[in-house]
């Protein structure tokens, strides 16, 4: 069952050119008792997801805009690459799966709360393949996906609140799948510059 964008959501913020989802199957929000900067910094340390997640087994940061996720239950494993298409520090990130069939896309919003904490909202649009498309029209299936996302968010809440502070940070901005660097030369890019024959 697909939810469509309501009138309250803008078509981009006018600054970051972000293109929010216009429809989604899952939307879940959790409030965490850490500042936005802390929540955002920890969330974007994708490699640490296996430390709190019940389903994420491994995350490989292939490059700033590409991660490879391995999820699993029991002995079952599935690895899939994900492209981060938009990322605004302390505010927003959007992803899409790079697999053609099936795939998914989604976004995460970080908003400060009046109490000094952070409201984190995850929206996901599932793009199944073939007959599986029928499943996304089922409230039961999308409800299961929503419960899984909810559980992950709660696990993240306990994780970051337990830590109290982030374990790292990547403060770059991504637009249309491409890193926008603010400094002349990010440290990671320091590699041999001479031509290779």
């Amino acid at each position, binding site marked *: 069952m697909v939810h469509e964008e309501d009138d309250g959501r803008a078509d981009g913020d006018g600054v970051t*050119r972000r293109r929010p989802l216009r429809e989604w199957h899952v939307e879940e929000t959790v409030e965490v008792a850490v500042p936005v900067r802390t929540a955002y910094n920890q969330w974007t340390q994708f490699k640490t997801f296996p430390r709190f997640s019940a389903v994420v087994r491994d995350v*490989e940061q*292939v*490059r*700033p*805009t*590409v991660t*490879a996720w391995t999820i699993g239950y029991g002995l079952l494993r599935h*690895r899939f*690459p994900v*492209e981060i298409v938009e990322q605004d520090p302390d505010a927003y990130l959007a992803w899409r799966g*790079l*697999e*053609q*069939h099936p795939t998914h896309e989604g976004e995460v919003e970080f908003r400060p709360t009046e109490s000094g904490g952070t409201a984190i909202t995850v929206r996901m649009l599932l793009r199944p393949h073939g007959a599986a498309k029928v499943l996304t029209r089922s409230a039961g299936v999308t409800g299961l996906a929503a419960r899984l996302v909810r559980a992950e968010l709660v696990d993240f809440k306990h994780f970051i609140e337990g830590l109290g502070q982030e374990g790292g940070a990547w403060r*770059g901005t991504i*637009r*249309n*799948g*491409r*890193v*926008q*660097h603010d400094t*002349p*030369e*990010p440290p*990671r*890019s*320091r*590699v*041999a*510059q*001479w*031509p*290779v*024959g």
Partner: protein
Amino acid sequence: MQSPPGQEPETSLSVTPPKKWAAGVPAVVHALEYSLEQTSPRKTGVDLLTMNQVGGIDCPGCAWADPAPGRRHRNEYCENGAKHINDEATTRRITADFFREHSVSDLAARSDMWLNQQGRLTEPMIKRPGSDHYEPIGWNDALGVLARELKGLDSPDEAVFYTSGRASNEAAFVFQLFARALGTNNLPDCSNMCHESSGFALNETLGVGKGTVSLDDLHHADLIFLVGQNPGSNHPRQLSALEQAKRNGGRIVAVNPLPEAGLRRFKNPQKPRGVVGRGTQIADRFLHIKPGGDLALFQALNRLLLEAEDARPGTVLDHDFINAHTSGFEDFARHARTVDWDDVHAATGLTRQEIEKVRDEVLRSERVIVCWAMGITQHKHGVPTIREIVNFLMLRGNLGRAGTGACPVRGHSNVQGDRTMGIWEQMPDTFLDALQKEFGFNPPRPHGLDSVNSIKAMLEGRVKVFLALAGNFVRAAPDSEVTEKAMRSCRLTAHISTKLNRSHTVCGDTALILPTLGRTERDVQADGEQFVTVENSMSEVHTSQGRLEPASRRLLSEVAILCRLARLTVDGVGDVPWARFEGDYNTIRDSISRIVPGFHDFNARVTRPGGFQLPNPVNEGVFRTETGKARFTCNERVVPRAPQGHLLLQTLRSHDQWNTVPYTDNDRYRGIHGSRHVVLVNPADLSELGLAQGDRVDLVSIWEDGTERRAENFAVVSYPAARGSAAAYYPETNVLVPLDSVADMSNQPTSKGIVVRLEPTGDRSRPAPA
């Protein structure tokens, strides 16, 4: 296992129709046949099951990347890789008796294949001045001869230090350090002859001289161009990545003067559909382009994209990327709009409709990758062609995003790593300063000699000592007769080698053969068993460690040879721990980690499964060019032309060949059997030239110096080559490539664009019926 051939095998030419698909079960059969001719089933098994596996041997065959750990096949190699690794692991041995039996003159008359088939070199040998025989010599004496010669030079610049892409990072680093401690930057390498044009063009336009894509990018691209490359024979594992891309819905456009089997269909022998099915179609669209027409093709595509944007503003070009990350767009666009369609047709042989169909493919694709190899780089206009490819990618923002980018496909397994380690005659001051800080001596600053200029310097008597770290320089270099004359003019030539090749037989007054361990073999030093590291075509750095016992107890590793030579030659220059380097390669990597950007924590990171990937600034939004942005360039139009009655020759490898070494006289995919002295020509061109299949001709190249370069007695084969072109095997036809015929800017020999005429010899013997 079979004994080495005593005499040159006598075979006769037969021609069958070219294959329409690559690999499949025949690839497995041929790989095993050759492997078991060379070595035992046990060694074959050990090699193949550890090749390209975590903790195993990096295949020396090519620089293609391995899948991530956990995603590799149990058999992660191709037919040619299997042949190559077991060619090295052969049980055949060359001993002192062999050299007593065969004089240098005798060996110089032998074929490349015969020399290679004799087996592994087992002990140091010397040919003394005036002698026509190699004789055994101890290691200390051999290295002493070389050290004395080097120390006796009037200038360190009278020595040249050549590197082949087989050398490991550690050996390459030590080699360049030794040369610079001696006082010279004369560090030519095989890169000078394969992808130098790529490095120059990419560095100028994107600020980094390496490709920008990973295997995952290929898997998830919407459209992949394969331009001037033959993956079926030269990097067969690329076919697996292309197959994956196709299964993910990607499409492929192949652009080549020959319709190579690997561009058409791939039967993956590890998949049921590859064994009993039809396999996977590779190219959805094949552009049968004339040699050297690629620049015009991409200029035409760029014009079409600009016109598409005119027709539908805001929907074709990636203005965000162009405005934020590039410079020079307006000048480029003005220039691109003046492309003339008559010129495009003359250069490419393609119709406007064919090119417009490719434009439509591009417009339907959000993520595009362009792969290329020596069909692009080995032209006079190789650098402008690659710059135009970069223009093409930038127009729609196909850089720095997943599934997009530039992909120069390299040959030798560590050719990229050797350059990263400082094997370059023009290293920047930042690198030399870091060497000075680490080792306490001031490296020479003037630029040294590349491959072409080294040959010229040898001819002019300015170079007296030639030392090669692996490779077969005499056969890899252009203008064979000139190169051989240059080598013979040296006072001393020395080669660190695993197997015999022609470079050992075309030598200076004194010649040394310094036999070394191969990739397949255990390397035990004072601090225990060692591993080495390599960097593949996609900038992944990982380990390589052999499992077999060395071919001889008298072999030394490349690092050991070089460190011992350095102690005899430059001991006391700076504070270089040569003995420690030899005993423990970790110490070399520690030094590298302090000198080469991107190699921090080298030892810790490289021993993780799969090693680590060097970041590519382009993928982080950084363009370290003169403008600080990716650069659009205006490239002059080039229409390669051959005079009436002439053809444009490209030299190429056969399927059964690794670099300069043919394994057999067969080229299975092209349907050539029993001879390498063939020239492939389009039947319409043959008709115009008054020739027929089976005619015997001399190939004569035309060059501005007026010298007649001739490759004699080749059989004409009617073949679906692009009109106006011819193709013949390397290195046999290197003799036709003039030393001065080089690519603009990169100084790379133009082995894919030689004007030749075919002179009938009068011998009309025809090949056996197909």
